[in-house]
Protein backbone atom coordinates (compact mmCIF):
# COMPACT_ATOMS: atom_id res chain seq x y z
CA UNK A 1 0.00 0.00 0.00
CA UNK A 2 2.80 2.41 0.85
CA UNK A 3 5.32 1.33 -1.69
CA UNK A 4 4.47 4.47 -3.47
CA UNK A 5 7.61 5.83 -5.00
CA UNK A 6 5.83 8.66 -6.74
CA UNK A 7 4.85 10.20 -3.47
CA UNK A 8 8.40 10.49 -2.27
CA UNK A 9 9.53 11.89 -5.56
CA UNK A 10 6.82 14.45 -5.17
CA UNK A 11 8.31 15.42 -1.86
CA UNK A 12 11.77 15.77 -3.33
CA UNK A 13 10.50 17.96 -6.09
CA UNK A 14 9.06 20.35 -3.60
CA UNK A 15 12.06 20.41 -1.36
CA UNK A 16 14.51 21.38 -4.04
CA UNK A 17 14.39 25.07 -3.44
CA UNK A 18 16.97 26.00 -0.90
CA UNK A 19 16.48 28.66 1.66
CA UNK A 20 18.66 31.71 1.63
CA UNK A 21 21.64 31.88 3.88
CA UNK A 22 20.86 33.29 7.28
CA UNK A 23 23.12 34.15 10.16
CA UNK A 24 22.60 32.56 13.52
CA UNK A 25 22.05 36.05 14.89
CA UNK A 26 18.95 36.61 12.79
CA UNK A 27 17.71 33.10 13.58
CA UNK A 28 18.20 33.82 17.24
CA UNK A 29 15.97 36.86 17.03
CA UNK A 30 13.30 35.01 15.10
CA UNK A 31 12.88 32.01 17.33
CA UNK A 32 9.49 31.29 18.84
CA UNK A 33 8.44 28.87 21.53
CA UNK A 34 5.36 27.32 23.03
CA UNK A 35 5.44 26.94 26.79
CA UNK A 36 5.04 23.47 28.24
CA UNK A 37 4.22 24.87 31.70
CA UNK A 38 6.86 22.65 33.25
CA UNK A 39 9.30 25.28 34.40
CA UNK A 40 12.55 23.34 34.24
CA UNK A 41 11.61 21.88 30.89
CA UNK A 42 10.87 25.33 29.53
CA UNK A 43 14.21 26.54 30.79
CA UNK A 44 16.02 23.65 29.19
CA UNK A 45 14.24 24.13 25.89
CA UNK A 46 14.78 27.87 25.96
CA UNK A 47 11.17 28.88 26.48
CA UNK A 48 9.30 25.76 25.40
CA UNK A 49 8.67 23.71 22.30
CA UNK A 50 10.48 25.37 19.41
CA UNK A 51 8.69 26.41 16.24
CA UNK A 52 10.14 24.77 13.14
CA UNK A 53 11.28 21.60 14.85
CA UNK A 54 9.98 18.14 15.61
CA UNK A 55 9.59 17.38 19.29
CA UNK A 56 8.61 13.98 20.59
CA UNK A 57 7.07 13.04 23.91
CA UNK A 58 7.69 9.49 24.99
CA UNK A 59 6.58 7.57 28.01
CA UNK A 60 4.64 4.61 29.31
CA UNK A 61 0.89 4.87 29.18
CA UNK A 62 -0.56 7.06 31.87
CA UNK A 63 2.46 9.33 32.21
CA UNK A 64 0.69 12.28 30.68
CA UNK A 65 1.60 12.41 27.01
CA UNK A 66 -1.92 13.16 25.91
CA UNK A 67 -2.36 15.62 28.74
CA UNK A 68 0.79 17.40 27.62
CA UNK A 69 -0.53 17.56 24.06
CA UNK A 70 -3.81 19.05 25.22
CA UNK A 71 -1.98 21.61 27.34
CA UNK A 72 0.26 22.59 24.43
CA UNK A 73 -2.73 23.00 22.13
CA UNK A 74 -4.00 25.62 24.59
CA UNK A 75 -0.66 27.25 25.41
CA UNK A 76 -0.05 28.01 21.75
CA UNK A 77 -3.00 30.37 21.96
CA UNK A 78 -1.66 32.61 24.73
CA UNK A 79 -1.98 36.22 23.52
CA UNK A 80 1.02 38.06 22.17
CA UNK A 81 1.18 40.58 25.00
CA UNK A 82 2.01 37.69 27.32
CA UNK A 83 4.77 36.54 25.01
CA UNK A 84 2.59 33.84 23.54
CA UNK A 85 2.08 33.02 19.91
CA UNK A 86 -1.64 33.62 19.58
CA UNK A 87 -1.80 30.72 17.15
CA UNK A 88 -4.06 27.77 16.65
CA UNK A 89 -3.44 24.06 16.99
CA UNK A 90 -4.21 21.05 14.86
CA UNK A 91 -4.71 17.88 16.87
CA UNK A 92 -4.30 14.69 14.85
CA UNK A 93 -5.67 11.85 16.88
CA UNK A 94 -4.88 8.27 15.90
CA UNK A 95 -6.23 6.43 18.90
CA UNK A 96 -9.62 8.04 19.31
CA UNK A 97 -8.34 9.18 22.65
CA UNK A 98 -9.19 12.85 22.41
CA UNK A 99 -11.28 14.01 25.31
CA UNK A 100 -12.99 17.37 24.71
CA UNK A 101 -14.21 17.55 28.30
CA UNK A 102 -10.63 17.34 29.56
CA UNK A 103 -9.58 20.03 27.12
CA UNK A 104 -12.38 22.23 28.39
CA UNK A 105 -11.22 21.78 31.99
CA UNK A 106 -7.70 22.76 31.05
CA UNK A 107 -8.99 25.70 29.05
CA UNK A 108 -10.98 26.97 32.02
CA UNK A 109 -7.85 26.65 34.19
CA UNK A 110 -5.87 28.65 31.68
CA UNK A 111 -8.60 31.25 31.43
CA UNK A 112 -8.44 31.70 35.22
CA UNK A 113 -4.71 32.30 35.04
CA UNK A 114 -5.23 35.16 32.64
CA UNK A 115 -8.36 36.47 34.33
CA UNK A 116 -8.58 40.29 34.37
CA UNK A 117 -5.38 40.44 32.36
CA UNK A 118 -6.35 39.35 28.88
CA UNK A 119 -9.80 40.29 27.71
CA UNK A 120 -11.34 37.99 25.18
CA UNK A 121 -9.07 35.10 26.10
CA UNK A 122 -11.98 32.80 26.89
CA UNK A 123 -12.15 29.06 27.18
CA UNK A 124 -14.88 28.93 24.55
CA UNK A 125 -12.66 30.63 21.96
CA UNK A 126 -9.77 28.43 23.02
CA UNK A 127 -11.85 25.37 22.31
CA UNK A 128 -12.68 26.75 18.87
CA UNK A 129 -9.01 27.24 18.05
CA UNK A 130 -8.07 23.61 18.46
CA UNK A 131 -8.78 21.82 15.20
CA UNK A 132 -9.32 18.14 15.52
CA UNK A 133 -8.62 15.45 12.96
CA UNK A 134 -9.36 11.83 13.66
CA UNK A 135 -7.15 9.38 11.77
CA UNK A 136 -7.94 5.92 13.01
CA UNK A 137 -5.80 4.13 10.43
CA UNK A 138 -2.30 4.63 9.15
CA UNK A 139 -3.64 5.30 5.64
CA UNK A 140 -5.73 8.14 6.97
CA UNK A 141 -2.81 9.54 8.92
CA UNK A 142 -0.72 9.46 5.77
CA UNK A 143 -3.44 11.20 3.78
CA UNK A 144 -3.79 13.79 6.50
CA UNK A 145 -0.06 14.58 6.53
CA UNK A 146 0.01 14.72 2.72
CA UNK A 147 -2.75 17.30 2.79
CA UNK A 148 -1.15 19.25 5.59
CA UNK A 149 0.57 21.70 3.28
CA UNK A 150 -2.64 22.68 1.60
CA UNK A 151 -4.46 22.78 4.89
CA UNK A 152 -1.89 25.12 6.41
CA UNK A 153 -2.07 27.37 3.38
CA UNK A 154 -5.74 27.95 4.03
CA UNK A 155 -5.26 28.18 7.81
CA UNK A 156 -2.04 30.12 8.26
CA UNK A 157 -2.68 30.83 11.93
CA UNK A 158 -2.05 27.20 12.88
CA UNK A 159 1.24 27.13 14.74
CA UNK A 160 1.23 23.69 16.27
CA UNK A 161 0.59 20.24 14.86
CA UNK A 162 0.16 17.41 17.32
CA UNK A 163 0.16 13.74 16.35
CA UNK A 164 -1.06 11.60 19.22
CA UNK A 165 0.12 8.92 18.89
CA UNK A 166 2.44 8.34 15.97
CA UNK A 167 3.62 4.97 17.26
CA UNK A 168 0.09 3.68 17.58
CA UNK A 169 -0.78 4.13 13.97
CA UNK A 170 2.58 3.01 12.60
CA UNK A 171 2.51 -0.14 14.64
CA UNK A 172 -0.86 -1.05 13.23
CA UNK A 173 0.92 -2.22 10.11
CA UNK A 174 1.92 -5.81 10.14
CA UNK A 175 4.93 -5.79 7.89
CA UNK A 176 8.02 -4.27 9.41
CA UNK A 177 9.22 -3.04 6.09
CA UNK A 178 5.96 -1.22 5.45
CA UNK A 179 6.26 0.43 8.81
CA UNK A 180 9.67 1.83 8.11
CA UNK A 181 8.65 2.92 4.64
CA UNK A 182 5.62 4.73 5.93
CA UNK A 183 7.58 6.31 8.74
CA UNK A 184 10.28 7.62 6.43
CA UNK A 185 7.71 9.03 4.04
CA UNK A 186 5.91 10.71 6.90
CA UNK A 187 9.19 12.23 7.99
CA UNK A 188 9.91 13.47 4.49
CA UNK A 189 6.48 15.07 4.36
CA UNK A 190 6.85 16.64 7.78
CA UNK A 191 10.19 18.09 6.71
CA UNK A 192 8.56 19.57 3.70
CA UNK A 193 5.79 21.10 5.80
CA UNK A 194 8.38 22.62 8.12
CA UNK A 195 10.13 24.11 5.12
CA UNK A 196 7.12 26.02 3.95
CA UNK A 197 5.32 26.87 7.15
CA UNK A 198 6.24 28.28 10.49
CA UNK A 199 4.85 25.52 12.69
CA UNK A 200 5.97 23.25 15.48
CA UNK A 201 5.38 19.52 15.20
CA UNK A 202 4.82 17.46 18.33
CA UNK A 203 4.64 13.67 18.19
CA UNK A 204 4.01 11.13 20.88
CA UNK A 205 5.65 7.76 21.01
CA UNK A 206 5.45 4.75 23.24
CA UNK A 207 8.03 2.76 25.12
CA UNK A 208 8.47 -0.90 24.53
CA UNK A 209 10.62 -3.70 25.86
CA UNK A 210 13.26 -5.05 23.55
CA UNK A 211 15.37 -8.08 24.02
CA UNK A 212 19.02 -7.51 23.54
CA UNK A 213 21.68 -9.98 24.64
CA UNK A 214 19.06 -12.00 26.50
CA UNK A 215 18.11 -9.04 28.61
CA UNK A 216 14.95 -7.02 28.30
CA UNK A 217 15.55 -3.36 27.86
CA UNK A 218 13.16 -0.47 27.76
CA UNK A 219 13.42 1.56 24.62
CA UNK A 220 11.33 3.96 22.65
CA UNK A 221 9.62 2.36 19.70
CA UNK A 222 9.90 3.16 15.98
CA UNK A 223 13.59 2.49 15.60
CA UNK A 224 16.83 4.39 15.29
CA UNK A 225 16.22 6.17 12.04
CA UNK A 226 13.19 7.78 13.56
CA UNK A 227 15.26 8.75 16.58
CA UNK A 228 17.74 10.42 14.31
CA UNK A 229 15.14 12.41 12.44
CA UNK A 230 13.38 14.01 15.36
CA UNK A 231 14.94 17.07 16.94
CA UNK A 232 14.12 16.68 20.58
CA UNK A 233 12.81 13.82 22.63
CA UNK A 234 11.25 14.38 26.03
CA UNK A 235 10.69 11.44 28.36
CA UNK A 236 7.76 11.61 30.73
CA UNK A 237 8.17 9.20 33.63
CA UNK A 238 6.85 8.90 37.13
CA UNK A 239 10.10 10.18 38.61
CA UNK A 240 10.37 13.20 36.42
CA UNK A 241 11.04 14.47 32.96
CA UNK A 242 14.12 13.51 31.04
CA UNK A 243 15.53 15.00 27.87
CA UNK A 244 17.68 13.10 25.39
CA UNK A 245 17.48 10.86 22.38
CA UNK A 246 18.02 7.48 24.01
CA UNK A 247 17.77 5.93 27.44
CA UNK A 248 21.55 5.93 27.66
CA UNK A 249 21.98 9.59 26.94
CA UNK A 250 18.92 11.04 28.59
CA UNK A 251 19.28 13.69 31.22
CA UNK A 252 17.01 14.44 34.15
CA UNK A 253 15.42 17.85 33.89
CA UNK A 254 12.53 17.87 36.36
CA UNK A 255 12.71 15.55 39.31
CA UNK A 256 9.08 15.62 40.36
CA UNK A 257 6.52 15.33 37.67
CA UNK A 258 4.93 18.71 37.99
CA UNK A 259 2.47 18.58 35.18
CA UNK A 260 0.84 15.22 35.45
CA UNK A 261 -0.62 13.75 38.58
Amino acid at each position, binding site marked *: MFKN*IKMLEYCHKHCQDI*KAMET*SDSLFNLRQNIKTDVQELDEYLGGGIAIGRVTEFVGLSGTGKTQMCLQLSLNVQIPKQFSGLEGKALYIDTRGDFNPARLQELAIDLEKRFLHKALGFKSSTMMQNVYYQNCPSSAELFACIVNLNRYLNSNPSIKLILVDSLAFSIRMLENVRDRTNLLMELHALIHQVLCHHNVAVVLTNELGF*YRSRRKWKLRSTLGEKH*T*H*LINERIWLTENGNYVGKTLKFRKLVTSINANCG
Partner: protein
Amino acid sequence: MAAKEDLKSLLAQTRTGKQLSEYHLKLLKKQKINTLHEFLDAQNLHKFLALSIDQVEQIKRELLLVSVKSIKFSNLYQKQPFSYSTGIEEFDKLLEAIGQPFRPGRIWELYGESGVGKTQLLHTLAVNFVCKYRDCRQVLFLDTKRDFDSRRIHQMLQDRHLDTDAIKSCMRAINVIICASAESLIKALNNMIEQLSSGDDSIAQIKLVLIDSLAASFIFFRSAHERNMGRRWLNQLAMLMRTLAAQHGIAFVIGNLSMTSEDGAVDDDDDNEDYLTQCSPEAPEDGNLLGDYWDSVCTLSMAFELPDESNNDLRLLRILNNSFGISEGSCLLRITDAGVI
Protein backbone atom coordinates in the same frame (compact mmCIF):
# COMPACT_ATOMS: atom_id res chain seq x y z
CA MET B 1 32.68 21.60 -37.21
CA ALA B 2 33.36 23.02 -33.78
CA ALA B 3 34.90 19.77 -32.67
CA LYS B 4 37.21 19.81 -35.65
CA GLU B 5 38.27 23.34 -34.81
CA ASP B 6 38.85 22.12 -31.35
CA LEU B 7 41.25 19.41 -32.45
CA LYS B 8 42.89 21.86 -34.80
CA SER B 9 43.45 24.44 -32.13
CA LEU B 10 44.68 21.81 -29.72
CA LEU B 11 47.13 20.56 -32.33
CA ALA B 12 48.32 24.10 -32.87
CA GLN B 13 49.19 24.35 -29.20
CA THR B 14 51.59 21.41 -29.32
CA ARG B 15 55.12 21.66 -30.57
CA THR B 16 55.12 18.74 -32.95
CA GLY B 17 51.44 19.03 -33.82
CA LYS B 18 52.01 22.55 -35.10
CA GLN B 19 54.08 21.18 -37.92
CA LEU B 20 51.13 19.27 -39.37
CA SER B 21 50.07 20.87 -42.62
CA GLU B 22 46.60 21.79 -43.84
CA TYR B 23 46.83 18.67 -45.97
CA HIS B 24 47.31 16.47 -42.91
CA LEU B 25 44.30 18.03 -41.26
CA LYS B 26 42.21 17.37 -44.35
CA LEU B 27 43.33 13.77 -44.27
CA LEU B 28 42.25 13.54 -40.66
CA LYS B 29 38.85 14.88 -41.59
CA LYS B 30 38.55 12.36 -44.34
CA GLN B 31 39.21 9.58 -41.85
CA LYS B 32 36.41 11.07 -39.72
CA ILE B 33 38.78 12.01 -36.94
CA ASN B 34 37.19 15.13 -35.56
CA THR B 35 37.75 15.12 -31.87
CA LEU B 36 40.66 14.78 -29.55
CA HIS B 37 39.38 11.48 -28.36
CA GLU B 38 39.12 10.05 -31.84
CA PHE B 39 42.61 11.25 -32.60
CA LEU B 40 44.04 9.56 -29.55
CA ASP B 41 42.16 6.34 -30.17
CA ALA B 42 42.83 6.13 -33.93
CA GLN B 43 44.89 3.19 -35.17
CA ASN B 44 47.33 3.39 -38.06
CA LEU B 45 47.52 7.17 -37.93
CA HIS B 46 51.08 7.10 -39.09
CA LYS B 47 50.12 5.20 -42.22
CA PHE B 48 47.67 7.58 -43.77
CA LEU B 49 49.36 10.70 -42.42
CA ALA B 50 52.64 9.40 -43.84
CA LEU B 51 54.51 10.16 -40.65
CA SER B 52 56.75 8.00 -38.54
CA ILE B 53 55.27 6.15 -35.56
CA ASP B 54 57.51 8.15 -33.26
CA GLN B 55 56.18 11.42 -34.56
CA VAL B 56 52.56 10.39 -34.11
CA GLU B 57 53.24 9.15 -30.62
CA GLN B 58 54.97 12.43 -29.82
CA ILE B 59 51.91 14.39 -30.98
CA LYS B 60 49.63 12.21 -28.93
CA ARG B 61 51.71 12.68 -25.84
CA GLU B 62 51.82 16.42 -26.26
CA LEU B 63 48.09 16.54 -26.93
CA LEU B 64 47.46 14.72 -23.69
CA LEU B 65 49.56 17.23 -21.80
CA VAL B 66 47.57 20.07 -23.34
CA SER B 67 44.18 18.56 -22.71
CA VAL B 68 44.71 17.47 -19.14
CA LYS B 69 45.09 20.45 -16.90
CA SER B 70 48.05 19.97 -14.70
CA ILE B 71 48.99 21.85 -11.60
CA LYS B 72 52.56 22.15 -10.50
CA PHE B 73 53.26 20.46 -7.22
CA SER B 74 54.94 23.56 -5.88
CA ASN B 75 51.70 25.48 -6.25
CA LEU B 76 49.90 23.01 -4.04
CA TYR B 77 52.64 22.61 -1.54
CA GLN B 78 52.68 25.05 1.31
CA LYS B 79 55.90 25.29 3.22
CA GLN B 80 54.33 26.26 6.46
CA PRO B 81 50.75 25.18 6.28
CA PHE B 82 48.31 27.09 8.36
CA SER B 83 46.55 25.08 11.03
CA TYR B 84 43.36 26.03 12.77
CA SER B 85 42.79 25.24 16.36
CA THR B 86 39.63 23.36 17.21
CA GLY B 87 39.53 25.18 20.51
CA ILE B 88 39.21 21.91 22.40
CA GLU B 89 42.48 21.22 24.12
CA GLU B 90 42.31 17.44 24.33
CA PHE B 91 41.11 17.22 20.77
CA ASP B 92 43.98 19.37 19.52
CA LYS B 93 46.46 17.15 21.33
CA LEU B 94 44.97 14.05 19.78
CA LEU B 95 45.11 15.58 16.32
CA GLU B 96 48.70 16.55 16.87
CA ALA B 97 49.48 12.99 17.90
CA ILE B 98 47.96 11.44 14.80
CA GLY B 99 49.55 13.98 12.52
CA GLN B 100 46.44 15.54 11.12
CA PRO B 101 45.89 19.02 12.47
CA PHE B 102 42.79 20.94 11.47
CA ARG B 103 43.75 22.65 8.23
CA PRO B 104 42.06 24.31 5.29
CA GLY B 105 40.85 21.79 2.77
CA ARG B 106 40.33 18.94 5.17
CA ILE B 107 37.18 16.86 5.03
CA TRP B 108 36.38 15.26 8.33
CA GLU B 109 33.60 13.05 9.41
CA LEU B 110 32.02 12.42 12.75
CA TYR B 111 30.13 9.21 13.50
CA GLY B 112 27.90 8.56 16.41
CA GLU B 113 24.61 7.20 17.57
CA SER B 114 21.76 9.61 17.68
CA GLY B 115 21.71 11.54 20.89
CA VAL B 116 25.40 11.12 21.62
CA GLY B 117 26.17 14.77 21.01
CA LYS B 118 27.41 15.08 17.43
CA THR B 119 25.34 18.17 16.92
CA GLN B 120 26.65 19.59 20.17
CA LEU B 121 30.23 18.99 19.06
CA LEU B 122 29.58 20.62 15.69
CA HIS B 123 28.01 23.61 17.42
CA THR B 124 31.07 23.84 19.63
CA LEU B 125 33.42 23.71 16.67
CA ALA B 126 31.46 26.51 15.02
CA VAL B 127 31.58 28.64 18.13
CA ASN B 128 35.28 28.00 18.75
CA PHE B 129 36.09 28.81 15.16
CA VAL B 130 34.28 32.12 15.06
CA CYS B 131 35.57 33.11 18.47
CA LYS B 132 39.11 32.73 17.24
CA TYR B 133 38.89 33.87 13.67
CA ARG B 134 35.75 35.95 13.42
CA ASP B 135 37.48 38.97 11.90
CA CYS B 136 38.42 37.26 8.69
CA ARG B 137 36.73 33.87 8.61
CA GLN B 138 33.19 32.66 8.80
CA VAL B 139 31.35 29.38 9.28
CA LEU B 140 28.56 27.90 7.22
CA PHE B 141 26.28 25.41 8.89
CA LEU B 142 24.32 23.24 6.44
CA ASP B 143 21.40 21.95 8.38
CA THR B 144 19.48 18.99 6.95
CA LYS B 145 17.17 18.22 9.84
CA ARG B 146 16.63 21.55 11.51
CA ASP B 147 18.89 20.75 14.37
CA PHE B 148 20.71 24.04 14.31
CA ASP B 149 19.92 25.80 17.53
CA SER B 150 20.79 29.47 17.65
CA ARG B 151 19.94 29.54 21.33
CA ARG B 152 22.57 26.93 22.06
CA ILE B 153 25.14 29.00 20.17
CA HIS B 154 24.07 32.03 22.15
CA GLN B 155 24.40 30.15 25.40
CA MET B 156 27.87 28.86 24.57
CA LEU B 157 28.99 32.36 23.70
CA GLN B 158 27.52 33.74 26.90
CA ASP B 159 29.37 31.14 28.92
CA ARG B 160 32.59 32.53 27.51
CA HIS B 161 31.91 35.85 29.18
CA LEU B 162 31.98 37.87 26.00
CA ASP B 163 30.27 41.22 25.86
CA THR B 164 27.09 41.73 23.90
CA ASP B 165 28.79 43.19 20.84
CA ALA B 166 31.25 40.33 20.63
CA ILE B 167 28.42 37.82 20.92
CA LYS B 168 26.56 39.61 18.16
CA SER B 169 29.51 39.65 15.82
CA CYS B 170 30.24 35.98 16.55
CA MET B 171 26.68 35.07 15.80
CA ARG B 172 26.78 37.03 12.58
CA ALA B 173 29.80 35.02 11.53
CA ILE B 174 27.85 31.77 11.69
CA ASN B 175 25.75 31.32 8.58
CA VAL B 176 23.03 28.74 8.29
CA ILE B 177 21.35 27.19 5.27
CA ILE B 178 18.49 24.81 5.87
CA CYS B 179 18.62 22.04 3.26
CA ALA B 180 15.63 19.77 3.35
CA SER B 181 16.90 17.21 0.86
CA ALA B 182 20.03 15.80 -0.70
CA GLU B 183 19.36 17.79 -3.82
CA SER B 184 19.18 21.06 -2.01
CA LEU B 185 22.41 20.23 -0.24
CA ILE B 186 24.07 19.78 -3.61
CA LYS B 187 22.47 22.94 -4.89
CA ALA B 188 23.74 24.89 -1.94
CA LEU B 189 27.32 23.72 -2.50
CA ASN B 190 27.00 24.31 -6.23
CA ASN B 191 25.87 27.87 -5.60
CA MET B 192 28.86 28.30 -3.38
CA ILE B 193 31.28 27.21 -6.08
CA GLU B 194 29.62 29.50 -8.60
CA GLN B 195 29.68 32.46 -6.29
CA LEU B 196 33.28 31.87 -5.34
CA SER B 197 34.48 31.49 -8.89
CA SER B 198 32.55 34.53 -10.07
CA GLY B 199 34.41 36.60 -7.52
CA ASP B 200 31.46 37.31 -5.28
CA ASP B 201 32.94 38.49 -2.03
CA SER B 202 29.94 37.90 0.19
CA ILE B 203 30.80 34.31 0.95
CA ALA B 204 34.53 34.43 0.39
CA GLN B 205 35.09 34.51 4.11
CA ILE B 206 33.48 31.14 4.71
CA LYS B 207 36.31 28.79 5.49
CA LEU B 208 34.58 26.08 7.49
CA VAL B 209 31.49 24.19 6.42
CA LEU B 210 29.65 21.97 8.89
CA ILE B 211 27.07 19.52 7.58
CA ASP B 212 24.63 18.10 10.08
CA SER B 213 23.62 15.49 9.32
CA LEU B 214 24.46 13.91 6.04
CA ALA B 215 22.67 10.68 6.84
CA ALA B 216 19.38 12.43 7.46
CA SER B 217 18.97 13.52 3.87
CA PHE B 218 19.91 10.14 2.44
CA ILE B 219 17.84 8.09 4.82
CA PHE B 220 14.76 8.67 2.70
CA PHE B 221 16.10 6.83 -0.31
CA ARG B 222 14.62 3.44 0.18
CA SER B 223 13.40 1.84 -3.01
CA ALA B 224 15.91 0.31 -5.39
CA HIS B 225 15.49 3.15 -7.84
CA GLU B 226 16.01 5.78 -5.22
CA ARG B 227 19.02 4.12 -3.74
CA ASN B 228 20.76 4.50 -7.06
CA MET B 229 19.70 8.11 -7.17
CA GLY B 230 21.05 8.51 -3.66
CA ARG B 231 24.38 7.06 -4.63
CA ARG B 232 24.62 9.39 -7.59
CA TRP B 233 23.97 12.39 -5.43
CA LEU B 234 26.40 11.18 -2.84
CA ASN B 235 29.08 11.04 -5.50
CA GLN B 236 28.19 14.48 -6.75
CA LEU B 237 28.32 15.78 -3.25
CA ALA B 238 31.72 14.25 -2.64
CA MET B 239 33.00 15.82 -5.84
CA LEU B 240 31.67 19.25 -4.88
CA MET B 241 33.20 19.04 -1.46
CA ARG B 242 36.54 18.02 -2.87
CA THR B 243 36.44 20.90 -5.33
CA LEU B 244 35.64 23.41 -2.64
CA ALA B 245 38.28 21.95 -0.38
CA ALA B 246 41.02 21.90 -2.98
CA GLN B 247 40.36 25.18 -4.77
CA HIS B 248 39.15 27.38 -1.99
CA GLY B 249 40.70 25.80 1.07
CA ILE B 250 37.42 25.22 2.80
CA ALA B 251 37.43 22.72 5.63
CA PHE B 252 34.47 20.40 6.10
CA VAL B 253 33.23 18.60 9.15
CA ILE B 254 30.34 16.25 8.52
CA GLY B 255 28.05 14.66 11.03
CA ASN B 256 27.01 11.15 10.15
CA LEU B 257 24.83 8.64 11.86
CA SER B 258 26.03 5.29 13.03
CA MET B 259 23.71 2.60 14.16
CA THR B 260 24.15 0.15 16.95
CA SER B 261 24.46 -3.09 15.10
CA GLU B 262 26.44 -4.95 17.73
CA ASP B 263 23.45 -6.59 19.30
CA GLY B 264 21.42 -6.72 16.18
CA ALA B 265 21.73 -10.44 15.69
CA VAL B 266 19.67 -11.30 18.71
CA ASP B 267 17.19 -8.53 18.22
CA ASP B 268 14.48 -10.84 17.08
CA ASP B 269 11.35 -9.59 18.72
CA ASP B 270 8.43 -8.47 16.66
CA ASP B 271 9.10 -4.78 17.02
CA ASN B 272 12.31 -4.86 15.15
CA GLU B 273 11.07 -2.37 12.64
CA ASP B 274 14.19 -0.54 11.77
CA TYR B 275 17.20 -1.04 9.60
CA LEU B 276 17.99 -4.67 10.27
CA THR B 277 15.23 -6.09 8.16
CA GLN B 278 16.23 -4.03 5.17
CA CYS B 279 18.27 -5.53 2.42
CA SER B 280 19.82 -2.25 1.39
CA PRO B 281 23.53 -2.27 0.78
CA GLU B 282 23.64 0.86 2.83
CA ALA B 283 22.47 -1.11 5.81
CA PRO B 284 25.22 -0.72 8.31
CA GLU B 285 27.48 -3.57 9.03
CA ASP B 286 30.23 -1.30 10.15
CA GLY B 287 27.90 1.40 11.31
CA ASN B 288 28.24 3.45 8.16
CA LEU B 289 24.94 4.41 6.70
CA LEU B 290 26.19 5.71 3.40
CA GLY B 291 27.91 2.75 1.84
CA ASP B 292 31.49 1.79 1.30
CA TYR B 293 32.30 4.43 -1.23
CA TRP B 294 31.70 7.20 1.23
CA ASP B 295 34.43 5.81 3.49
CA SER B 296 37.02 6.95 1.01
CA VAL B 297 35.85 10.54 0.74
CA CYS B 298 36.87 11.87 4.10
CA THR B 299 40.43 12.34 5.20
CA LEU B 300 39.63 11.63 8.80
CA SER B 301 36.72 9.87 10.39
CA MET B 302 36.04 9.84 14.05
CA ALA B 303 33.56 8.06 16.26
CA PHE B 304 31.88 9.81 19.12
CA GLU B 305 30.72 7.43 21.80
CA LEU B 306 29.79 6.95 25.41
CA PRO B 307 32.63 5.19 27.25
CA ASP B 308 30.92 4.58 30.53
CA GLU B 309 27.22 4.34 31.10
CA SER B 310 27.40 5.62 34.65
CA ASN B 311 28.85 8.97 33.66
CA ASN B 312 26.50 10.74 31.37
CA ASP B 313 28.66 13.72 30.47
CA LEU B 314 31.81 11.96 29.38
CA ARG B 315 32.37 11.13 25.73
CA LEU B 316 35.08 9.24 23.92
CA LEU B 317 36.29 10.53 20.60
CA ARG B 318 37.98 7.72 18.74
CA ILE B 319 39.82 7.89 15.44
CA LEU B 320 38.41 5.37 12.99
CA ASN B 321 40.27 6.17 9.86
CA ASN B 322 42.99 8.62 9.01
CA SER B 323 44.33 8.97 5.51
CA PHE B 324 47.41 10.96 6.53
CA GLY B 325 48.81 8.98 9.41
CA ILE B 326 48.12 6.64 12.23
CA SER B 327 44.51 5.72 12.59
CA GLU B 328 44.53 4.97 16.26
CA GLY B 329 43.96 7.05 19.28
CA SER B 330 41.20 8.54 21.29
CA CYS B 331 40.51 11.30 23.72
CA LEU B 332 37.96 11.96 26.40
CA LEU B 333 35.72 14.98 26.12
CA ARG B 334 33.11 16.38 28.41
CA ILE B 335 29.72 17.67 27.41
CA THR B 336 28.71 20.83 29.22
CA ASP B 337 26.33 23.70 28.71
CA ALA B 338 29.24 25.72 27.40
CA GLY B 339 29.81 23.15 24.67
CA VAL B 340 32.19 20.25 24.43
CA ILE B 341 35.47 20.61 26.30
